[in-house]
């Protein structure tokens, strides 16, 4: 089948699957149950997009088969879909099954739903067994205790399945299953499964057990955590595989909340220190990312002491880490420590670190510091930093890589707001104008947008005095690209500057450029007039804009003519 036909037929099938409810309505509930559903159960040969749509539709089919009394009829097609190899389709089928399980009566759950789960759990294919893992928690609460025992047994079996894929599915659902179990079974069953999965030979299984740890810890009473959960967690934090340690670092805040302040003080603080000093950079970076959150969530009574004695020394080391991602991760959160530690500690201990990172060779590190200045501003005021800040900003603004320059432009409105208009005018204004004539178009465009935001922040009067003259001055630049930038700026600024400035200062410049020798400039004049037209009054439009547009409409260049005519019609000047 050639590709076009194949795509077309998939699209047709996809469209029809999305109209499945219409078909079901037309057939009526009985024919839907007896004819449509059997057909759908067997047609799982299709493309993934079609199967995915089907799995989703079936989740909403309860009324179309006759209501909750008949909802179990939806189980066969969904059971088929739960065995396909494409993960997104299986996951959607499981999601729909979970949804309709709520509409089964407790009797129907035992008679229809639970047997389905049993069949999937003991199926030959890994795919059915992985899907089963997602269904235990929804049927457990409402079935009899004998059936509950069966479900627990099935889950246990899947946790020690031969295939890593199935064990991974079981591990990822461990927390969710634990939540619906009675506390006694959590202690007796879940804990041993958790410990086993956390020592699995496959790294990919062990790291999912770390996630489960959070849920399990939240369910258990504090006094049981030390014996039932902490040994496993300590083991994970020192696992030979860096990926497992990474997971611990990544989930650190959740773990902290789950285990509570005592265990945090005794176990998690040293564990966190170790992660910050881990031999693998990825782990250090993940831990560095959590520094602020971890410190924030320490118990208030000895928070400062813990941070100053245990965390800050590690943080100092990270500032000069060999790996740039680690430093960058640290830079994105380190400023947040100032609100936690207060003014004096910030000035004495944190300020040197901020300044060091502000001078880091990696641009991303510097950018991350600059983007978080507001936290520091709150605590000690920006003046302390501003001396080092300016050289850092200038260096980033002139970086050889255009994406770095782009990033700093994006922070400019924020910085301007924090540093104030005087500092900006004194030091940053020239930079903003220089960006307007950068070699890279993306920079010129971002710079134009930047100006607009600055005008919004500082007001039209400021614009009139500081930037408008410079922008309009570019209209005489020998380089046509710079002349066009003037027009783009005018487009961006006219609304913020208001009618007065636009009419008296900007409009004359635009009109003058209608005589430019480069056609690109001329047709952009037409586009500009169209853009700023709504800001002008009707007098200006009729007496000044209309004649110029009419002239451009007879231009020798086709594009100029086109845009002029378009402007005339949009502005209703004809």
């Amino acid at each position, binding site marked *: 089948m050639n590709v076009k036909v194949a795509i077309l037929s998939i699209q047709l099938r996809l469209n029809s699957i999305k109209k499945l409810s219409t078909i079901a309505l037309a057939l009526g509930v009985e024919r839907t149950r007896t*004819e449509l559903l059997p057909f759908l159960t067997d047609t799982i*040969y299709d493309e993934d997009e079609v199967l995915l749509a089907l799995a989703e539709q079936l989740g909403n089919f309860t009324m179309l088969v006759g209501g909750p009394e008949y909802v179990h009829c939806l189980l066969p097609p969904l059971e088929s879909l739960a065995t396909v190899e494409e993960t997104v389709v299986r996951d959607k089928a499981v999601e729909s099954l979970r949804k309709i399980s709520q509409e089964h009566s407790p009797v129907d759950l035992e008679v229809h739903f639970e047997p389905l789960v049993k069949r999937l759990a003991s199926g030959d*294919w890994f795919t059915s067994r992985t899907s089963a893992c997602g269904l235990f928690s929804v049927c457990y609460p409402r079935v009899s205790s004998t059936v509950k025992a069966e479900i627990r047994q099935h889950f246990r079996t899947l946790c020690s399945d031969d*295939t890593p*894929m199935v064990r991974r599915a079981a591990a990822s659902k461990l927390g969710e299953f634990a939540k619906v179990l009675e506390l006694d079974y959590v202690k007796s069953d879940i804990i041993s499964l958790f410990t086993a999965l956390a020592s699995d*030979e496959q790294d990919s299984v062990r790291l999912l057990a770390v996630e489960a740890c959070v849920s399990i810890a939240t369910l258990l009473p504090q006094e049981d955590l030390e014996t039932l959960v902490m040994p496993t967690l300590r083991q994970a934090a020192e696992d*030979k595989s860096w990926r497992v340690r990474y997971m611990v670092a990544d989930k650190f805040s959740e773990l902290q909340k789950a285990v509570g302040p005592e265990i945090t003080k005794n176990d998690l603080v040293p564990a966190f220190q170790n992660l910050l000093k881990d031999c*693998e950079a*990825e782990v250090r970076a993940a831990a560095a990312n959590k520094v602020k959150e971890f410190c924030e969530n320490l118990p208030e009574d000895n928070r400062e002491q813990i941070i100053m004695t245990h965390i800050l020394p590690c943080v100092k080391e990270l500032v000069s880490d060999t790996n740039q991602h680690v430093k960058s991760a640290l830079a994105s959160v380190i400023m947040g420590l100032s609100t936690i530690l207060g003014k004096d500690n910030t000035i004495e201990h944190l300020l040197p670190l901020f300044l060091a990172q502000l001078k880091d060779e990696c641009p991303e590190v510097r950018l991350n510091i600059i983007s978080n200045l507001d936290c520091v501003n709150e605590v000690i005021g920006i003046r302390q930093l501003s001396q080092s800040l300016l050289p850092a900003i200038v260096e980033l603004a002139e970086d050889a890589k255009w994406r770095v320059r782009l990033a700093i432009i994006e922070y400019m409105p924020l910085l301007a707001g924090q540093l104030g208009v005087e500092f900006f005018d004194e030091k940053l204004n020239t930079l903003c104008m220089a960006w307007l004539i950068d070699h890279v178009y993306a920079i010129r465009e971002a710079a134009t947008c930047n100006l607009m935001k600055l005008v919004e922040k500082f007001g039209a009067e400021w614009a009139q005095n500081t930037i408008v003259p410079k922008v309009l001055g570019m209209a005489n630049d020998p380089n046509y690209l710079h002349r066009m930038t003037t027009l783009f700026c005018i487009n961006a600024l006219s609304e913020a500057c208001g009618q007065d400035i636009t009419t008296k200062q900007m409009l004359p410049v635009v009109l003058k450029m209608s005589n430019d020798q480069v056609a690109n400039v001329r047709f952009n004049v037409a586009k500009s007039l169209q853009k700023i037209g709504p800001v002008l009054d009707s007098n200006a439009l009729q007496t000044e804009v209309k004649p110029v547009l009419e002239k451009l409409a007879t231009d020798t260049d086709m594009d100029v003519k086109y845009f002029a005519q378009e402007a005339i019609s949009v502005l209703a000047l004809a």
Partner: protein
Amino acid sequence: KPLPFPSQMLPMGVEYDPSLQLPASDIISTVEFNHTGELLATGDKGGRVVIFQQEIENKNLPQFRSEYNVYSTFQSHEPEFDYLKSLEIEEKINKIRWLPQKNAAQFLLSTNDKTIKLWKISERDKRPEGYNLKEEDGRYKDPNTITSLRVPVLIPMDLMVEASPRRVFANAHTYHINSISVNSDDETYLSADDLRINLWHLEITDRSFNIVDIKPANMEELTEVITAAEFHPHQCNTFVYSSSKGTLRLCDMRASALCDKHSKLFEEPEDPSNRSFFSEIISSISDVKFSHNGRYMMTRDYLSVKIWDLNMENRPVETYQVHEYLRSKLCSLYENDCIFDKFECCWNGNDSVVMTGSYNNFFRMFDRGQRRDVTLEASRENSKPMQVLKPRKVCAGGKRKKDEISVDSLDFNKKILHTAWHPQDNIIAVATTNNLYIFQDKVN
């Protein structure tokens, strides 16, 4: 169950000759059994994949005979052109690796020099009948004649085997891909080119992690390239890669994200008596394979097969000479480029026998326990169905006995580079330049 050394190899029913169905330039470039041995995949220079399925006549008989028949054929890769470098990208399939079966369908990874593809092979045996808008012959009905809505039913049809590309893993290799290997975790795999090894997740095609990078900062300092790589069969964190200088490096992915530092380096000190101008070239490892039990690795260099114990780095535990008689011919083999031929090697199901190819359509099997070996030939003339293959012998010098073949009469254009062994039984697949042979041990 124990596997005896195959002593009575019989040619089996089919000898697939791609040139009969396809343009004559197509040469088989890779051969691989799936995990049960029921399916055998071959890839060729024309980018095609042909899959054979085992059909067993009466498995209950002690001496069952199985046949491999064509199950599916599809075009995996097409030739491409790299516009930036003005280079052609060949469609030749370098490697095929099967995924463990997870449902009714089968999956395999196939790769050319630059792009890896995941293929799904599935069976369809039902089709829908009873459309509302169409007659049985396909003509559209007059809508005015349709008075009721009917639901099609599925009726049986002849078995159709469909192959569809499920994922394309592209743009991650600057150099030519020489190996792919699936991890025991069933969700990741590695791909290796001359200088780099990347780790992929089977579900994610737009990202790949680089785990080994041996490219020097200054390319003029390049002395060694990666020739093959493989994951350990059970340990999800361990993989090995071989080099053109005859070294093997075992790496542990747990220790760090970038595995440039190996955990073990396997290298045999050179035998000074055998030193020659060609020593380095012939020490280049062309293939590396872990044993099924995960305790050993086998390497193939130009003249020999070596077995290494994972716990001993300074020398192999066993060395088998494949065609030592070629050592005195290295000069002419260098001139006709044969010295650069990349032979593969493989283990039998219980790691007691290893096999590799040679020239003149010969292939060799070495029994590790009994210290015996045999040379067999895969050719039309010498394989009549139901007739046991006769062992061959090369006469290295001196008086040539009857039935022996002299070194100078060997045909170096007839090379067996690719061989595969069924994971459980004594059934082997051997690819000559353009034919595939399947042999089964009579004693089964």
